[in-house]
């Protein structure tokens, strides 16, 4: 009750201020009148009585102030008052306010944008029903057993999924899924969209309701279901069909098969993969129908599915994991592929399943971007720190100009706490506006960040909504920066002894030097932090440069990767190479094509083949064997890639089906496997799973090339003749070297392809683009750290300039006297520069130490240089020194050009 009354009265005080004030007046006046009346009765005149009564009361306003102070709403009012006052002050100082707000907004905006990404990738839970019940099932610590791996999460095979589904106990329902690219073009140039293979339980387990139509159910997912039905996402529905409701029942073309659309998912559902979205979801059972001979569902060595489930009530992730571990031997026993050799099978049977939390979904972005993002947040945090100390410096400068104002206010009775509160309100206002502008900035920054992590083939999607974590983070930043740049100046400004400050001593020789110390400390820390950022920026820029320049063993420019898919021709195995070779000849015939070749694996594309190697040509291969990577290529491949042939010959027409197996190997292969003697003519055999090939004879040796990744060490690599391969795919990947324009070349290739056959699927990507897509992370780091580095140096230099200018201004008289006594201009310049150099030197040494410590976190992200790279440090030190000394020269010259007489007269 009492609390409620307090609340309502307080609110009345806030919102019906006038009537409350009026009552206050009336009450006091009534008292005063009574008092006057009584004193008149006692014999005073009206005048005397009034005077005496007022003396007793002790000042109407003071009493009223005390009465107001007894209530809680007065705090709010005082605060509001402070804020309004601060606002007025800032309006008078528009340039200061705008500079402060902009620098804070940039700092806070950058931090918020990066944090938003971390939040989206790492911290958020899936937008599905009770996400904490979702867990992921996969093999713990997998190694050894081979097979084919596809999709981003090749956790399990279909046979394993069936076994798990039937034997597990901890989950009420489970589902399997795999991301895939679906071609929705009816023919001609391929048009890929983001697809999902999902088992029938996918939507019901996640608790997703259809926005329209119905979603896939276990009834849709039956073996041999063919073109069962497709569920499309809300965004795809709007993009491709304009949100038309009549879309249900219409046919989609996926990989050239018509499939009816049966339903649409809600707008906020993007699947279980964070950072990605999907356009079309198809039941797993339709996979054999759509992928034909490349079907993964029927192969026991195809790893392509990821499995998740909803835990039964009362089951924890640990308990479900323990149950899975217990039944693992039976599951792997039942799903062991016949194709495995004894070693592979042994590894396979030793595997143990485990359960892992799935409440925040899964994402391969976490492995590749989590460290970079935290590191970027750290860098952005340093920038904000520099911005805040810059602002602190400005505030300190203002504080010293307002010294007299503060002294005056204290002299007339303002409390120190009250003044500090008011100065802090000013800082808080700045930080608050900065945070709001920063949040707005972050909203346009974070999509740019996401876009810079996306490629055409791998578009990212992130739910960047502002949740409580982001809001809390931004608010905390604002308060923290406010305290950082506001508190010290406020304490300083109010620590004056009023009498001393009011005496007009300021500006003279008696300037207290301590007042200046804090600003020096701020500048030193700014220089130190910006050196750290500059070192970081240079490290990442040089690492990126190393990646761009590293010798990959081939020349990246001028190659177009063309994929011509002739699955629809339904050619038998024997006819395929012939057709592909025919296509290749036509492409070579295009005017302006310098070389063209077919390759099974395009280097750095992410695809790869690895087999066991047995040297010699006899004996039963057994046991663990060393592994080499493989590629199957046509003649002219090395000319097209510009990879040097070191010995022997290239493949040619002789190396056809039926002739003896030949191979060309890389220098590393020779080093690891041949060791001594002439490699040409050496023979070896290849084991893939349980099949061992007839012997291959080495006919050539080529230079080492990168295979998976530009960062890797060279691996032993074997090239075999694609014409000799007995299971050719129904597509030809042609690498075309030409100096034609990209557009011209693509249209020529399209026309020769349609001359060969009108019904082919064709897709293109420039080799350079493909490689650059693989360097996205490095480029992002280089760009952002570069941006932060430049920003940091700029802010630090402004800070240094400010402090030196201030120093010069406050020592004007001294300088004047020195000059009057005969000091020349160079002496004065040196006097000022000495001060600046001292600050710079201290800042640089602290910064060097800091950069050495911080560098360790960047170790794994750098290529071709260490975080302690001496050249980088020298460069950063030099750049910062030059810029800083340049900034100090300006005030130094101004100091040296003062007229000594004018100065002294002022005093």
């Amino acid at each position: 009750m009492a609390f409620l009354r307090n609340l309502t009265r307080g609110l009345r005080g806030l919102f019906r201020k006038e009537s409350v004030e009026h009552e206050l007046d009336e009450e006091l006046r009534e008292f005063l009148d009574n008092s006057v009346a009584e004193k008149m009765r006692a014999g005073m005149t009206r005048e005397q009585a009034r005077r005496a009564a007022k003396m007793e009361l002790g000042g109407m306003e003071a009493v009223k102030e005390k009465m107001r102070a007894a209530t809680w709403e007065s705090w709010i009012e005082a605060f509001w008052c402070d804020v309004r006052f601060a606002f007025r002050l800032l309006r008078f100082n528009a340039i200061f306010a705008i500079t402060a707000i902009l620098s804070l907004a940039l700092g806070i905006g950058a931090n918020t944008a990066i944090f938003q990404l971390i939040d989206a990738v790492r911290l958020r839970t899936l937008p599905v029903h009770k996400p904490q019940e979702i867990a992921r099932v996969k093999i713990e610590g997998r190694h050894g057993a081979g097979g084919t791996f596809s999709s981003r999460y090749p956790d399990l095979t279909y046979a394993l999924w069936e076994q798990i589904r039937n034997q597990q106990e901890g989950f009420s329902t489970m589902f399997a899924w795999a991301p895939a690219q679906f071609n929705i073009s009816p023919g001609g140039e391929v048009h890929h969209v983001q697809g999902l293979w999902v088992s029938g339980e996918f939507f019901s387990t996640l608790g997703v309701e259809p926005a329209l139509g119905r979603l896939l159910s276990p009834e849709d997912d039956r073996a041999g279901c063919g073109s069962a039905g497709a569920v499309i996402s809300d965004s795809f529905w709007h993009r491709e069909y304009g949100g038309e409701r009549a879309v249900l029942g219409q046919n989609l073309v996926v990989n050239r098969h018509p499939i009816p659309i049966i339903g649409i998912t809600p707008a906020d559902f993007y699947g279980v993969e964070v950072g990605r979205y999907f356009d079309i979801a198809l039941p797993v059972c339709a996979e054999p129908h759509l992928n034909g001979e490349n079907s993964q569902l029927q192969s026991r060595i195809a790893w392509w599915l990821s499995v998740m489930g909803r835990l039964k009530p009362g089951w924890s992730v640990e308990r479900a994991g323990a149950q899975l571990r217990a039944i693992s031997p039976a599951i792997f026993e039942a799903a062991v592929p016949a194709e495995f050799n004894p070693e592979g099978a042994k590894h396979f049977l030793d595997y143990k399943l485990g359960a892992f939390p799935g409440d925040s979904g899964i994402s391969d972005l976490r492995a590749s971007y989590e460290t970079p993002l935290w590191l970027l947040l750290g860098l952005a945090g340093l920038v904000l720190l520099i911005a805040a100390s810059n602002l602190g410096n400005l505030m300190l400068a203002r504080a010293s100009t307002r010294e007299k104002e503060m002294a005056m206010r204290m002299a007339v009775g303002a409390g120190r706490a009250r003044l500090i509160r008011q100065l802090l309100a000013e800082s808080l206002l700045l930080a608050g506006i900065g945070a709001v502008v920063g949040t707005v900035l972050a909203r346009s920054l974070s999509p740019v960040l996401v876009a810079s992590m996306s490629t055409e083939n791998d578009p990212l999607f992130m739910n960047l909504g502002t949740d409580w974590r982001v809001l809390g983070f931004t608010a905390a930043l604002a308060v923290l920066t406010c305290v950082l740049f506001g508190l010290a100046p406020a304490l300083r400004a109010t620590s004056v002894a009023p009498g001393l400050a009011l005496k007009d001593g300021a500006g003279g020789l008696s300037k207290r030097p301590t007042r200046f110390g804090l600003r020096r400390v701020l500048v030193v820390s700014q220089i130190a932090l910006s050196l750290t950022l500059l070192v970081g920026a240079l490290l990442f820029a040089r690492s990126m440069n190393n990646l761009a320049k590293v010798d990959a063993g081939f020349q990246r420019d001028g190659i177009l990767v063309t994929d011509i898919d002739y699955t629809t021709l339904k050619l038998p195995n024997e006819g395929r190479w012939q057709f592909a070779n025919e296509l290749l000849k036509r492409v070579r015939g295009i005017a302006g094509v310098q070389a063209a070749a077919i390759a099974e694996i395009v280097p750095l594309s992410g695809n790869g083949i690895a087999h066991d190697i047995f040297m010699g040509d006899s004996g039963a291969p057994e046991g663990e064997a060393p592994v080499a990577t493989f590629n199957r290529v046509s003649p002219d491949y090395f000319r097209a890639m510009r990879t040097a042939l070191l010995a022997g010959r290239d493949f040619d027409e002789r190396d056809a089906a039926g002739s003896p197996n030949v191979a060309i190997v890389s220098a590393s292969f020779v080093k690891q496997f041949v060791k001594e003697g002439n490699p040409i003519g050496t023979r070896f055999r290849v084991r893939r799973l349980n099949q061992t090939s007839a012997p291959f004879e080495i006919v050539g040796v080529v230079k080492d090339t990168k295979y998976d990744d530009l960062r890797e060490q060279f691996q032993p690599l074997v090239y075999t003749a694609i014409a000799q391969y007995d299971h050719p795919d129904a597509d030809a990947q042609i690498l075309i070297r030409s100096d034609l324009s990209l557009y011209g070349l693509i249209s020529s290739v399209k026309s020769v392809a349609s001359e060969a056959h009108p019904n082919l699927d064709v897709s293109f990507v420039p080799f350079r683009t493909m490689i650059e897509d693989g360097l996205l992370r490095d480029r992002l780091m280089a760009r952002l750290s570069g941006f932060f580095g430049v920003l940091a140096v700029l802010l630090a230099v402004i800070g240094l300039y400010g402090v030196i200018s201030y120093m010069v201004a406050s020592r004007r008289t001294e300088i004047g006297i020195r000059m009057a006594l005969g000091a020349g201009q160079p002496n004065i310049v040196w006097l000022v520069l000495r001060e600046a150099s001292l600050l710079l030197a201290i800042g640089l040494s602290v910064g060097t130490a800091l950069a050495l410590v911080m560098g360790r976190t960047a170790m794994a992200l750098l290529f071709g240089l260490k975080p302690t790279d001496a050249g980088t440090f020298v460069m950063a030190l030099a750049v910062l020194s030059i810029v800083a000394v340049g900034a100090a020269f300006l005030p130094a010259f101004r100091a040296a050009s003062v007229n000594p007489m004018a100065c002294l007269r002022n005093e």
Partner: protein
Amino acid sequence: MAEQPAGLVQGTLDMLILKTLDLQPMHGWGIAQRIRQMSGGVFEINPGSLFPAFRRLERAGLLDCEWRISENNRRAKYYSLTKIGRRKLATETREWWRQVAAIGKILESVS
């Protein structure tokens, strides 16, 4: 916090106000007069402390107030005790006597 008028024991102003209002609702002037009269003119209550004390007690829920017409036909703000105020007065009074008795004993033993 409100200052105490000279001669008044720390923290007793609130108790005196509550005691004064125990009989009947009163306005500010009346309360000041009554305290002076009851104390035989020993306590001159400074209005600068009295009014903030009213506001504080009111907000704490010990006092209630309403505007009435006073004896000389003017609008005046009358304060009265709430239930909580009455309880508070009782406990404060008890506590006061306990302390006075204790202090008394100490003083007697010393003299």
